[in-house]
């Protein structure tokens, strides 16, 4: 079966990454996720949430 060893070694010293055996792209995956988490929320979401009560 496939080996657990990543083909891409981590860079010499990932800054603050913490996950020593993750390949480069693993950080990228978290960045993609975090970048969306940190986006300002479009108003449409707050509008929807505000309206939830009236639907119940």
């Amino acid at each position, binding site marked *: 079966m496939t080996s657990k060893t990543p083909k891409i070694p981590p860079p010499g010293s990932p800054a603050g990454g913490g996950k020593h055996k993750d390949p480069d792209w693993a950080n990228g995956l978290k960045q993609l996720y975090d970048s969306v988490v940190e*986006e300002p929320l479009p108003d449409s979401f707050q509008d929807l949430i505000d309206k*939830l009560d009236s639907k119940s």
Partner: protein
Amino acid sequence: MAAEKRTASEKADFKRELTEVVPHLRAFARGLCGRADMADDLVQETLLKAWAAQDRFQPGTSMRAWTFVILRNAYLTDMRRNRFRGEYDETVAERVLTAPAGQEEPIHLSDMHRALLTLPPERREALLLVGAGGFSYEEAATICDCAVGTIKSRVGRARAALNAMLADGNIPKRSIDDDAAHRAILEELDDVAAGQGSSRS
């Protein structure tokens, strides 16, 4: 009417918690379906379903995990209706690329995201949950309604596939638009939706 009907204060708590997880729902949805507008539609659908099902939420448990289950199921349903074609949102990836990355050589996140979208959905969601969302294998298994070993296997295979694609620079341009690939994905979705995705993982 039911004895479990939420009080006003419980509803307020629920609503607050629901609001707090919206950014995470958006991130998970974006990773799953690749397009910001469709991802946000999916999140809105999830919020409405979560609100309607709030009596089934156990206060004190993870709202993020609970809503991810709802979002995931909505995604699977929509995907089977062929609504998402794995379109790729270039602007997000490009913006991330230019952000301070804390690493010397920014990898091409656009490549990474495109590669991610070529994975079978069950592996993609497993990797997103564990590798990006920070869920434990156990939590991810609960969300995906499968065994912990299955999640570990899916994450391992997803990682191996991404390693191979990104190391070789061999990323299918649009495998999701390819009919055969898309059919294969839909077949896998049938398994996933039936809770049997484990057999091949």
